[in-house]
């Protein structure tokens, strides 16, 4: 004698199972949820909320997660996601794929002008990006969207934004005081140890070729193919990208270049690259800039310690 499968048994039976499981798997976690905001939580401003609507309408969530995991290294990895970060998110935008970077902590990573240039054409600031162009949104919506993105990370984003705003004022002041003062200002903010450090690797064809490749993938959009600061992003950025060709004879050491590439120049569109590029890649691209655009490289000069075993 087997179970008699009548229409009632099928329909009522399966509905009853669904109801029970919905209670356990959906309602129970809902009823026992913890609404306590996390330490970084704050509510979004109306403009940020409007930017979030633009984010949703254009399906940004399909490529950008907002979900930092314990195993992550990249963007925002300093802050593992907590349930209390999301207590005002309707809908929650965790995402399911990282075709682009996680944006949980994007706020304040870059200044506003970097984002505008990047939205107009992502290849302007990130030459290898496969993100679509969002110039069609128009200036007003791009600014609203930027407000949302700059708020990602909530209180932590606010902290980073204050830093961006402060240093942007300083960077603009330096830029407007002329090239000599600007270059000095930039170099003076590099710690002394780095300022007096020559590039420890000798100039080689292979190293220059690697530096060239890195330059094309990371630098070209702002500094331009000939290093004059006239890349496609330039019209959208202020202060504008640095023109390397004016640096000859201004005591730009390999260490200064390395430090600026590694750490970025907060307040300007120059990002830090320490997450993207390992040590040798930064030295290589720095030497590429020194050799081809500044026409003055200190590679392999003293003090350099014991020659590395691989050196030619």
């Amino acid at each position: 004698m087997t179970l008699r499968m009548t229409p009632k048994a099928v329909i009522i039976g399966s509905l009853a199972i669904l109801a029970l499981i919905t209670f356990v798997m959906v309602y129970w976690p809902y009823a026992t949820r913890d609404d306590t905001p996390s330490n970084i939580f704050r509510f979004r401003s109306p403009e940020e909320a409007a930017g979030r609507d633009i984010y949703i309408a254009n399906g940004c969530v399909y490529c950008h997660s907002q979900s930092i995991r314990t195993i992550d290294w990249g963007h925002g990895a300093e802050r593992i996601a907590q349930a209390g970060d999301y207590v005002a998110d309707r809908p929650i935008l965790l995402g399911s794929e990282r075709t682009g970077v996680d944006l949980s902590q994007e706020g304040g990573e870059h200044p506003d002008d970097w984002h505008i240039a990047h939205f107009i054409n992502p290849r302007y600031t990130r030459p290898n990006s496969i993100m679509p162009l969002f110039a069609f949104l128009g200036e007003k919506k791009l600014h609203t969207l930027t407000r949302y993105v700059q708020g990602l990370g909530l209180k932590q984003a606010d902290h980073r934004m204050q830093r961006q705003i402060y240093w942007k004022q300083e960077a603009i002041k330096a830029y407007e005081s002329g090239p000599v003062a600007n270059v000095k200002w930039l170099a003076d903010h590099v710690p002394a140890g780095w300022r007096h450090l020559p590039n420890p690797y000798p100039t080689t064809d292979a190293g220059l070729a690697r530096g060239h490749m890195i330059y094309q993938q990371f630098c070209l959009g702002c500094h331009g193919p000939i290093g004059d600061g006239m890349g496609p992003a330039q019209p959208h950025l202020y202060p504008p990208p640095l023109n390397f060709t004016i640096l000859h004879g201004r005591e730009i050491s390999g260490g200064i270049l390395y430090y600026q590439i590694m750490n970025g120049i907060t307040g300007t569109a120059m990002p830090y690259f320490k997450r993207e590029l390992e040590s040798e890649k930064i030295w290589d691209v720095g030497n590429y800039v020194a050799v081809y655009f500044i026409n003055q490289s200190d590679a392999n000069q003293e003090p350099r310690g014991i020659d590395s075993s691989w050196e030619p």
Partner: protein
Amino acid sequence: MDSSTTSAALTNRTARAFCLTSAGWMVMATLMGLTGATELIAPDLYHNISWLVFGRVRPIHVNLVLFGFVTPGLLASAFYFLPRLLQTEIYSERLGLITAGLWNITLVAAVISLATGYSQGREYAELIWPIDVLVVVCFGLVCFNLFMTVKRRQEPLLYVSVWYVCAAVILTSVTYCIGNVIWQPNSGALVGIPDAIILWFYGHNIFGLLLTPLSIAVAYYVIPTAIRSPLYSHTLSLIGFWSLIVVYTHIGTHHLLQVPVPTWLKVIAIVDSIAMVIPVMVFLINIWYTAKGKLGEIHADIGAKFVFAGTIMYFFVSIQGSIMALPQVQRVTHFNNWVVGHAHIGVLGFAAMIALGGLYFIIPRITGRPLYSRLLADLQYWLILIGVVGFTVVLTTVGLIQGNAWLNGETVYRVLPEIHLYYVLRASLGVLIFSSAIIGLYNIIRSLLPHPGARA
């Protein structure tokens, strides 16, 4: 189980309408998939055309595949075989036609709303509230029509395909409302982590309570009919049916293993994901033992051939799915193209193969003529088979490259040049799928229309 006397009297108008719905939307759905895949290679291609931006194309692709192509294809078969299994007519062919019409209006509204940026931003639950209501009305009308047909049946016993169809349409009506948080018209969402839990509960139910049971229903009808043999085991049918509903509804949270949701919920999701082996293998053993020694007859019928290939894909995608639910595996596979590959094996390899198999199985039996072209149907079979196997290889490879590079500390941006080639291969395979959709639509239209010059 087929009765020729009843068959002759049936008009199958609803089944025909859903055949055309499915074949037509397959073209649009795969075109959107191909468009999205192309944008990942050449992001400047549709320069600033707002409605072709990737983030709008992707949900159009996904929604059209689920609700435009695969579900109507499977329902076409259901509207064909229910009257035959129940020895009665469809309760109302007229209502069926109205349902199909409303279904198509809903799909057009879905495409327009998503293309113009009206989205609720939740995967598989993007559609705005008025369209959600249309979807629920469509499913409600299907439920009503099919349940009334069951009620008027002449055959007292319900065959296993009938159980699955009835459960699929009623459970989806309910789970669609829950998942789309339909009592919140403005947002269609809960707040915070509970929203993620309810979303993936629903997202997985679209596969577990809609595509899978309908596909299984079609397989349970097509395979025994094609080989003229009884089903291997009634007991296995029963175990498979009830265990599918119990187990599948528990596993949605395996999408959230790396998210701060309650641990007990993750444990249930992982354990039940492994337990999915039970409903999957019970069904497959039942259908494969039924087909044992009769593969020649399956091969001879292009519809049955599609369906049988779909069952093999079901085996692969389900075992893969169970493995993917393990936290240690997800450290590599989560957030990358591995999962996209998995979704394509499941929906294209399993559910869509069976949906198309159902169409090719029922169309000659509806018209009383052979297909317009068996060759074109075979060509479509091979294009899809090569395409989906290719997707599996390519996307799994990309996923492994991405996942391992990320674990190793490389940024998403750094990995882009390494995977470009695979995106090219993936779009190339998409051309095969899109071509097959055009071939299928042509073949199905020509098969359903009176042949030119044919006798009246």
